[in-house]
């Protein structure tokens, strides 16, 4: 727990709040830490203090922590692979090159396994999806209080270090994949072919409205399930880390009970972290595989 003064509910809320930068409308009443109320004279660009303010900022606000972390992680991963790619030789690979080649072949093999069409973009897409999501998920294994504490010391009120627990990140990627699915569906099957696929099956042309409903739901479900699966898993994992952290937080002085709590926090967070290694890898892999499968479906004339 970051501070004795926080209640459990505040602690959880604090951990689930993104660092949101946006515009508060004029006349918005801000509550500061000491309980004073201050009405804004004019619309102000600022960092939200708490969920209510973030909500008041509306759509045109940016979650700085999600943005910075995902950019940083993606850049690190791209830099690493790019360095290898620049020096890639046909000789005996060593160290990092070995790892990168292994990773690339692993992704390439899964793509070959489930993607039957011919498209040079699917491989890089799958690689990016896998390693970006994996590195974002990996941040979940950092002790949950460390980064927010450091950030608080630097004057940053909130910092959610795991971008994939922010639905914006997962939906952002899912929408990207969805746009690609739409693009390739239309490119491969033609606009009429794609429309036909949506309306002429499974019940033939007389069941057009029903067909459209069924196939439309089918289509929309793809990005939503992609985004929600990843978000749900990571959010739930994060939540459990927070709850485990709360156990040690309820330390009440030297007693058998609090010693037990403290010990079990260590054991539980260790166990959950080890289990989480599996989850973060699996979720990255599932997102990648489904992306490839959806694109494969978009490339197929019949299904």
């Amino acid at each position, binding site marked *: 727990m970051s501070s004795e003064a926080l209640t459990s509910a505040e602690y959880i809320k604090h951990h689930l*709040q993104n660092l949101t930068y946006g515009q508060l409308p004029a006349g918005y009443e801000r509550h500061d830490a000491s309980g004073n109320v201050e009405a804004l004279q004019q619309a102000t660009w600022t960092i939200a203090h708490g969920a209510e303010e973030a909500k008041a900022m509306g759509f*045109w606000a940016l979650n700085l922590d999600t*943005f910075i972390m995902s950019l940083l992680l993606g850049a690190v991963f791209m830099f690493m692979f790019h360095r*290898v790619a620049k020096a*890639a*030789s046909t000789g005996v690979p060593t160290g990092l090159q070995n790892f990168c080649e292994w990773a690339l072949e692993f992704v390439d093999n899964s793509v070959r396994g489930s993607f039957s069409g011919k498209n040079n973009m699917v491989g890089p897409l799958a690689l990016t999806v896998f390693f970006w999501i994996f590195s974002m998920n990996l941040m979940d294994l950092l002790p949950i209080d460390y980064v927010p504490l450091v950030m608080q010391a630097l004057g940053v009120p909130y910092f959610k270090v795991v971008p994939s627990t922010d639905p914006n990140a997962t939906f952002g990627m899912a929408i990207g994949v969805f746009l690609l699915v739409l693009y390739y569906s239309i490119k491969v099957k033609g606009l009429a072919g794609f429309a036909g696929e949506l309306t002429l099956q499974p019940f033939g042309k007389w069941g057009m409205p029903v067909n459209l409903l069924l196939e439309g739901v089918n289509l929309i479900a793809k990005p939503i399930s992609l985004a929600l699966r990843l978000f749900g898993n990571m959010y739930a994992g994060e939540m459990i880390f927070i709850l485990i952290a709360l156990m040690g937080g309820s330390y009440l002085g030297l007693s058998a009970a609090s010693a037990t709590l403290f010990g079990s926090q260590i054991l539980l967070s260790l166990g959950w972290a080890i289990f989480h290694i599996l989850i973060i890898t699996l979720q990255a892999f599932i997102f990648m595989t489904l992306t490839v499968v959806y694109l494969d479906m978009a490339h197929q004339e019949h299904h």
Partner: protein
Amino acid sequence: MNINATLLAQTIMFALFVWFCMKFVWTPIIAALEERKKQIADGLADAERAKHDLELAAKRAAEILREAKEKSADILAGGEKRASEIIEAAKDQARTEGDRIITGAKAEIDQEVFRAKEQLRTQVSAIALAGASKILGREIDAKAHNDLLDKLVAEI
């Protein structure tokens, strides 16, 4: 935890990363991998071909060896045949030469015998003349009885 413009930012960032990955990561590494795969395949094919060549060479060497052996056997057999021929020829020559020498010797002997007979004949006639003159007690005119003597000599 509400949806806001981060969504758009993330989508754009995603697209940029995919583009970067495609252009600067995936393509060169895959190219290197393909190149290496090709090199390995070439190496294996070369090794296979070399093995094949070796087999062929061994077969060829064995054939040449066999041919050489055959040839040498032929030569040996020819040599032996030739030797026996030469020996045969030498034997033949020796035999004819011997025969010739024997015939020559025989002819010479015959001649010698003939000559001795002639000599004997003349000496016998002389002896007979001498004997007869002694018996008669007077000289016989050899000229007068020449025809008689000649007849005698011819009878001997």
